């Protein structure tokens, strides 16, 4: 494994936070009284699935060469953008915005995934600059 860079750590931390957080901390609304789920639950599941992918890439990246690493970072950046769009754009959340999926999950997912997208894009741009030297 090469020396860890700042973006390595940031990408790993953000994707892990997203993956674990969406299940444990900022999860969507609970099940209804009859045990069925509201749509926001499926948004949560989708975010969870994509973030597992991002976390896996973030780990695999650590063992790659600089150029490949930058490519992986770009992929994570795009996945970050997609993840930010999952709640309420791709999968509609609950009826009222004071509900948990709106009040807690939505902003948390958007912030973490947008930060991932920015960090991934920054790593890619930086690698291009290094390459230009």
């Amino acid at each position: 494994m090469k020396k860890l860079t700042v973006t390595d750590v940031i990408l790993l931390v953000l994707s892990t936070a997203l993956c674990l957080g969406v299940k444990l901390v900022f999860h969507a609304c609970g099940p209804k009284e009859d045990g069925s789920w509201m749509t926001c639950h499926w948004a949560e599941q989708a975010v969870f699935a994509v973030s597992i992918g991002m976390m896996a890439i973030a780990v695999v990246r650590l063992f790659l060469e600089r150029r490949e690493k930058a490519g992986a970072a770009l992929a994570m950046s795009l996945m970050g953008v997609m993840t930010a769009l999952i709640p309420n754009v791709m999968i509609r959340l609950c009826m009222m915005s004071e509900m948990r999926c709106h009040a807690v999950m939505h902003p948390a997912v958007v912030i973490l995934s947008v930060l991932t997208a920015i960090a991934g894009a920054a790593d890619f741009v930086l690698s291009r600059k290094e390459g230009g030297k």
Partner: protein
Amino acid sequence: MRQNLAVRNLKAKPVRTGILILLTALLSLMICGGTLLVASMRSGLASLEARLGADIMVVPYEAKTKSNLENIVLQGNPGYFYMPVERYEKIASLDGIAQISAQFYLASASSGCCSIPVQIIGFDPETDFTITPWIRRSYAKQLQTGDIVVGNDLNAFVGDTLQFYGVNCHVAAKLDKTGTYYDSAVFTSVETIRQLIASSLEKGMNDFSDIDPQSVVSTVLINVAEGYSTEEVMNDINIHVKKVKAVQTKEMISGISASLKGTSDLIGVLIVVVWGLGVVILLLAFSMSVNERKREFAALRVIGASQRNLASLVMQEAVLSGLAGAVCGTVIAVMGITAFHTAIEEQLGLPFLMPSLGKQMLTSIISIAAVLVAGTAAAAVSAYRISRIDTALILRGEQ
């Protein structure tokens, strides 16, 4: 290069610089976040006052147990109660009433995607003076039967169709945010809500089984005429109309004002404590940072840096790290509160309306400026001391 040297010094000690940035970020987070929270609660309260928009609210005696009424009006827990329309007429006949209008409450059953019931409020367009002016801002036309207007927090949009008790309702407009429970309510005209109440009765889903939807109202809102005191009119109603309770809206929100004051006092104390500690730590941090580099400053003097140069180097380091920290803290505060305002509102249990973007910007700029002033003031002490060092003495002793 001299400015560059400050940057280089900061880069050369990432831990120390990191701590400085963290500390100044915390200061700006506190002051910007605290100010925005208090401002949001204040405008939430103002917004609630504006939405209540009446001097007196009359409810059926059953609902007068404060908790029930406050639950619905202030906390936004859906609920409903009714009284015969005769009581409305009786009240209207009393003296000292300038404006009077009835409202009709209904809670939707769990339906559609989400299990939470929605508060539905019906108003009489003929007499209404509280809701109509607000709806006007988003929707200029008259509401047709079957039209509804949704609060800002509802995840429904103009053109959508929502079903309540089997009745299809058409979303005609979405209201501006108020930061109060009205944001998660649905508004409609008296004809529509009577239909809905009737339908809920038919389906056996209304707690009141023996009412006639055509001849009940839920609350009566009153503005007092000039020359009469609100208290007088309220007492008049309570004495002359049976089985109702008139309350001053001002009194209703006094509880909210009190907890707002409590919360903002607490935030104020927190800010003062954190700032007090923060400034002391900043003082120490700069003093330590300068002390351990005494020899470097002496060397700069030898090379030909003036006292002013040295002081300015210390100040530049302070301004650069302070600015970085202040901007970080402010951005985190503004973004955090904006993103999680609904969760914060739930936690506080108070009306919460974010100030306008311009006010947010102003608050941010003032916070950054305040942190910079505190940071540079703390650094100024060290800068002054270092500019007065006895170069010869430092270079001589291996201190």
